[in-house]
């Protein structure tokens, strides 16, 4: 068991930050909310599609960055120009023709966030979105989150450090976790 006695509600246009030290179960919480791992006791109600940005790249190493991202953009049915916009937001246009395997840690993270930005899903699940980002990219992440919440989207983020965004709710997993 990772945690028990956990209850949270999030409305459209709200954001929640799950805080806690490494191993507190932040990632497990997000994966459970996403439906990737089963919730053995209790209930999860989702209204709306979710999109997850965790530490997994899910892009083919030998593809060019723009092709690899276009694969997901096409699958998400994103409108034309959304991908370019997202890549521009995270300063990836310069790297568009580079094979994904050549990207650095921070650039990978930005690619993951660009994929998130392209998706029209209203609920964002962010697992340590700030890891490996430089100051400028962190700021870009902050504006992206503010814009998403402003449009009526919801954000559930997990991070062990503070993110450049004002969260409506803070969940401290140190206190609520059972094991």
């Amino acid at each position, binding site marked *: 068991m990772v945690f028990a006695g956990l209850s949270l509600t999030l409305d459209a246009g709200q954001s929640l930050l799950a805080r806690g030290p490494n191993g507190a179960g932040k990632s497990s919480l997000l994966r459970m909310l996403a439906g990737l791992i089963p919730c053995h006791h209790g209930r999860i109600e989702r209204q709306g599609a979710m999109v997850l940005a965790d530490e997994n*790249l899910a892009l083919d190493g030998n593809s060019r960055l723009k092709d690899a991202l276009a694969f997901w953009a096409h699958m998400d049915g994103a409108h034309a120009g959304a991908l370019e916009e997202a890549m521009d937001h995270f300063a990836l246009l310069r790297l568009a023709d580079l094979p994904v395997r050549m990207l650095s840690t921070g650039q990978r993270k930005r690619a993951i966030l660009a994929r998130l930005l392209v998706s029209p899903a209203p609920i964002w699940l962010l697992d340590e979105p700030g890891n490996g980002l430089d100051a400028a990219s962190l700021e870009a992440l902050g504006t992206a989150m503010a814009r998403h919440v402003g449009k009526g989207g919801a954000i559930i983020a997990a991070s062990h450090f503070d993110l450049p965004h004002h969260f409506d709710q803070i969940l401290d997993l140190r206190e609520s976790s059972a094991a």
Partner: protein
Amino acid sequence: MRRWFLPLLRRDLLLAWQGGGLWLPLIFLLLVASLYPFAVGPDARLLAASGGGMLWIAALLAALLPVERLITPDRDSGLFDQLLLRGVSDEMIALAKLAAHWLSFGPPLMLAVLPASALLKLDADTILRLELGLAIGTPALAALGVLVAALTAGLRSAGALAGLLALPLAIPVLIFGAGSLHPGSGAAIKFLAAITLLLVAITPIAAGAALRSGRE
């Protein structure tokens, strides 16, 4: 479904093409067929009598060649997680993998059988029956490959374990596949078709369950 199934299939085939996956079964089969006469001697009658069955063994092993590349890399890269979040089920992922695996090794293998048959002095009738048997049997071999790949995904030395797991399930395919090479063996072809249907029907469900339990 069209939105994700075809792109995924196209991507898998492209990766197989780039990674040499399409040439691997072809070269493998030709290699075995050209080594075989050296091992058993150049007796044309013996080669013609045993060559067909030997090509079936080679086809079976060719299906297992890419087993480690089928599921594990995509599972580890988070590709499956992203597909699941977009409403694709584990079973459908396994089905897409099955289709892509068959497309990337079935048709090239059937092509490679033609020059390989010439090396083994098979007659025209045997070649025809071999091609028919492979057309019916290779989906079963592809299903088997995906099934054991999903079952062993994430384990150490998954390739060796996958081979051991596939072996008992592959024996019926081999028996009826090689059995269909003799004249008047309509029953063997029908049994082969039955096994193919069974494996193709079971694989998405069993591999999907394996993927799901592998996430916990």
